[in-house]
């Protein structure tokens, strides 16, 4: 290291900072790959060029200066056009601009000012991609980026000593050879430096963690606009207009749709995550009627009251949902609750009558929200919006014209064939029972009818023929999936005079055995039904055969309601997923409440320690006072003397041990060893008789220098090895004499 450090010149430093700059550029693109912004071609191209610049630096350096000068106006034109063409969506052109600038700075020969620009640009890319993705990979990216950028800045700073004028060396890449360069770089690092760097990096990470925890969270409520990413597309199965097969297509996707942190205790019932309610029948499938859509209550806040039918004033366990971006704009709710608490302000449309809520735009990245006081709900209570239904069921006229919600929940196919099939089904459900039947009884019987002799399958061959697709399936005995079961149930119920609707969302989820939370995958997408009871409200029904819903070609072990629970997932994939949730819980979702809890916890620990110390001291003091206040006889005095003697002996032993340890430490240190060696030489010279003045001027000089090393300050030592060599010669000479 010594020789290498001495030989390090400006060209070496320039080469190092070039390669480090290229690596910084490459690293900053890492998370950009996971952004769904349609930038893949650009990111890939930039990554390839940056890699080329790192691997073949002389090529980039050999390009003429005018080539780089031309790039600036070209980039300006590109960026301006990009912003204009992007319309209002400024994030993709912004990221494209930063990538282009970072690419330019990575490829071109850089001065120190441009090195700093590269650092800023790559930092922007890292932070922006981290903010937009919220991925755990951001942590890894940051863990790599931080030491790299520190090393880069260190090299840039060192290079200033060589070239205060900030010039690019001409000979930087002449006869450049990777093998020699790597050998030279390896020579710079010895184990001591690596350990020191490791300690420094750990210290920095520790201080960053402490700062992260202790930085105050003001929660200004996003009063200033900031980067928010909208999804470029969502699953069609989770939209207002669903055609048959949309949900099945989601079920073929095994990726996680959202994760739900429900506390340490696993719920006994498998939750139904309602997302949207489809009230209107159409031949293509069920959809959200225009009238229902218009009923939405718009809220812009980070604290939104639950929809009226789901509102739960009583306390319960808070559930935190980490909803992946690009799934849907409808939020999954597993039951009744008090409020939805978001991390920041959001525009939400709440369906009070249906118990749903949707974002204005589908989030492009992970959305966090907490449901306070969550409780299971099988029945949605009556809402004022249901009044027309109650009147309609009581036989009052509902008026003409196009039917609005909630009367849309009575809509049926218009063709005779379908109605005939439905009539047959209603008759089968009633089973010849001519008495009036309540909604709950009818629903239970309808479910039994639908599930009788009918299996579950994602692939169905519905017979061709006239009429609605649902009634054709109902008329057959082929297996079906949740959409068919729920849709058929709703039509049968409606034909029997019971308002009914289809509910879409998720059912169940895989229980992560490492961190105890639900991993709800897209394959858990599900559809079920609700039937209206004028006395209770909307009753939940699961027409899909129990134990088979939500499976892709394989039956789930999970029971539909209240049955046995599936085993916890403890696979490697679940472990990796649990890391992500730890990241979400401890880092991304860390808020003022957790901060206050942490501070309270630390305060409680200190309080406990203080109380226990105080109690111990008090008891010791009172015991001492009692002892001193006792009768003073000979035994008492002997005990006192004995204790004092023990204390003195312990103190002396402690001092001796401490001195011994310190002496050993001093001996182990380099300077103490050198002093000891000088002392040995002085003794040998004295023994050989060379300590007299007759030893000559050379001997006197050697003795003086040895005494200097033995007793003098280290900073003023002469060349130690040379002195020891002279001393060795002097000893030999004296021995000969």
């Amino acid at each position: 290291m010594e020789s290498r450090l001495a030989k390090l010149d400006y060209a070496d430093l320039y080469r190092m900072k070039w390669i480090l700059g290229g690596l910084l550029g490459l690293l900053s693109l890492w998370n950009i790959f996971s952004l769904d912004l349609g930038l893949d071609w650009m990111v890939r191209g930039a990554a390839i060029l940056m890699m080329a610049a790192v691997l073949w630096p002389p090529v980039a350096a050999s390009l003429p200066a005018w080539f780089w000068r031309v790039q600036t106006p070209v980039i300006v034109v590109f960026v301006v056009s990009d912003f204009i063409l992007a319309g209002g969506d400024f994030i993709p052109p912004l990221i494209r601009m930063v990538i282009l600038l970072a690419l330019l700075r990575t490829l071109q020969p850089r001065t120190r000012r441009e090195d700093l620009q590269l650092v800023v640009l790559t930092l922007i890319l890292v932070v922006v991609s981290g903010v937009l993705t919220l991925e755990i990979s951001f942590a890894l990216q940051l863990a790599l980026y931080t030491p790299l950028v520190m090393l880069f800045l260190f090299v840039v700073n060192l290079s200033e000593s060589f070239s205060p004028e900030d010039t690019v060396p001409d000979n930087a890449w002449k006869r450049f050879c990777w093998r020699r360069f790597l050998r030279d770089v390896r020579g710079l690092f010895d184990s001591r430096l690596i350990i020191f760097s490791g300690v420094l990096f750990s210290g920095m990470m520790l201080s960053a963690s402490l700062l992260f925890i202790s930085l105050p969270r003001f929660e200004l409520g996003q009063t200033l606009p900031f980067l928010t990413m909208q999804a470029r597309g969502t699953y069609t199965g989770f939209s207002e207009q669903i055609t048959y097969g949309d949900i099945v297509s989601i079920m073929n996707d095994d990726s996680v749709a959202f994760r739900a942190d429900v506390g340490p205790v696993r719920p006994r019932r498998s939750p139904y995550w309602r997302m949207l309610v489809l009230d209107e029948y159409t031949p293509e499938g069920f959809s959200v009627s225009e009238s229902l859509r218009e009923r939405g209550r718009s809220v812009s806040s980070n604290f939104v009251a639950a929809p009226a039918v789901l509102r739960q004033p009583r306390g319960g366990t808070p559930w935190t949902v980490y909803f992946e971006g690009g799934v849907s704009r409808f939020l999954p709710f597993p039951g009744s609750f008090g409020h939805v608490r978001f991390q920041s302000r959001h525009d939400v449309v709440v369906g009070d009558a249906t118990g749903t809520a949707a974002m204005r735009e589908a989030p492009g990245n992970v959305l966090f929200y907490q449901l306070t006081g969550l409780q299971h709900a099988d029945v949605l209570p009556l809402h004022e919006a249901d009044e027309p239904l109650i009147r309609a069921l009581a036989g009052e006229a509902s008026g003409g014209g196009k039917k609005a919600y909630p009367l849309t929940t009575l809509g049926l196919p218009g063709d005779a064939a379908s109605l005939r099939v439905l009539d047959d089904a209603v008759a089968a459900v009633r089973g010849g029972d001519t008495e009036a039947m309540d909604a709950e009884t009818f629903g239970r019987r309808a479910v039994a009818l639908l599930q009788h002799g009918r299996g579950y399958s994602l692939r169905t061959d519905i017979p061709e023929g006239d009429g609605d697709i649902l009634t054709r399936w109902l008329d057959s005995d082929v297996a079906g999936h949740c959409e068919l079961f729920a849709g058929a149930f709703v039509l049968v119920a409606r034909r029997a005079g019971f308002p009914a609707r289809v509910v879409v969302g998720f059912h169940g989820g895989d229980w992560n055995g490492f961190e105890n939370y639900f991993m709800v995958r897209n394959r858990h997408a599900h559809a079920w039904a609700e039937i209206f009871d004028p006395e209770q409200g909307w009753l939940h029904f699961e027409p899909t055969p129990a134990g088979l819903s939500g499976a892709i070609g394989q039956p789930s072990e999970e029971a539909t309601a209240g049955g046995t629970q599936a085993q916890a997932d403890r696979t490697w994939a679940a472990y990796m997923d649990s890391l992500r949730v730890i990241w979400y819980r401890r880092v991304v979702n860390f808020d003022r409440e957790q901060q206050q809890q942490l501070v309270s916890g630390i305060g409680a620990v200190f309080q406990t320690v203080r109380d226990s110390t105080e109690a111990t001291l008090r008891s010791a003091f009172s015991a001492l006072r009692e002892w001193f206040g006792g009768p003073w006889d000979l035994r008492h005095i002997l005990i006192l003397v004995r204790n004092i003697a023990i204390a003195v002996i312990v103190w002396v032993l402690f001092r001796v041990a401490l001195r011994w340890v310190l002496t050993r430490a001093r001996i182990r240190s380099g300077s103490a060893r050198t002093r000891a060696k000088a002392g040995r030489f002085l003794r040998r010279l004295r023994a050989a008789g060379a300590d007299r003045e007759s030893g000559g001027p050379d001997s006197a000089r050697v003795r003086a220098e040895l005494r200097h090393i033995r007793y003098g300050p280290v900073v003023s030592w002469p060349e130690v090895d040379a002195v020891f060599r002279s001393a060795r010669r002097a000893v030999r000479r004296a021995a000969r004499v």
Partner: protein
Amino acid sequence: MSEVPPVEREAGTPVPAERNAEWRDPGFFVRRRPLWSAVRLVVQLFKPPRGHRTLPTRAGAVLILLCLGIGTAAFNTSQNILYIALALLLSSLLLSGVLSWLNFKGCRWRLAVSGPFRAGESAPVAVEVHNAHRRLPLYSIAFEIDTHIGADKKVLHLRRGILPGDTVKLEWLWKPSRRGEEVVILRRLVSKFPFGFLRKSIEFPMEHPVLVWPAKIDAPLTFSRARAARPMGRLSHRAGYGADLRNLRDYRPGDPLRQIHWRATARQGRLTVREDFEETRHSYVVSLGGSARQWRLEAQFEKFCSFAATVVEDLYRAGRLQGVAFPRERARPVHNLGELHAVFDALARLQPQDCGPAGEEPRFATLLTFRPEGSESVLCLADGITVGQA
């Protein structure tokens, strides 16, 4: 190296010249009581000692702006990713400060000004830097040096790291512009270590007065006309350059190496030089006498000093300089380098108002005098005959 250990000293206060040879340190942890030093260090974090300054560099300003921007965004959005970025930026500033402190802690330095300095000629002014760390190298230190009168400035950068226990010398080839008394000032220690965010400086003026001799100019003397009037040389019993041994004596600084008597040195175990009888060649006495009024023009007086110094040096090199007569003084004999340097020192300090008639007429030697010619030139006269012009 026979230096004394570092002496703690309040930064910002000038160091006396006689102590410039001592190693200096930034004042961190030099006391033997580590607890007190630690307390003092904490206090210094809030109230920096006098002379200590920390300013953000361009990179530091960018970092602070980034911190402000990311901090605002973090508080606005409650985005913890932004809080992480902010925490990392702040801790990098913290780390930068700690590393900078560690780097400074191991640094020892001293000003090494040896001279001689001559106007128009380069001579080294050095700062010796020692790394007192036992394990860490010393990096990225710079010293700002300037001069008091000439206002010359130089920043000496430590280009390569100094390994633990090593010492390096940073040299500045200083070319003084004019003769006279000058002060070389080691103004401050500057470092941007480790990442260039902060420019930390410690004002620690170490002043070293130096004497700048007059410049050597190109003005040869022609003695052809004066030769006829030259008096014959006489035998001298004084020590000087010649062939006959007069005496052996101990070596004194300034003695020419060729005068060392090696055999006697070997015999006696110490350096011994031979003194010869001065050869009876014709010699000169340079008279710097004259009236203050004749040197009213400063530039002309400076030229006179340079011309005189050149003549004195040339004659000394030729072995034909008997002495130099300063105003109102008896002629000083100039037989060795020490005496020659003393003459240069006096010439460096000479002012027009010091001028006056020479103290004594030389015997057995030709007197060289100077007088102004016109408004720019200076003439050199040997017994009244012009032998040179500058």
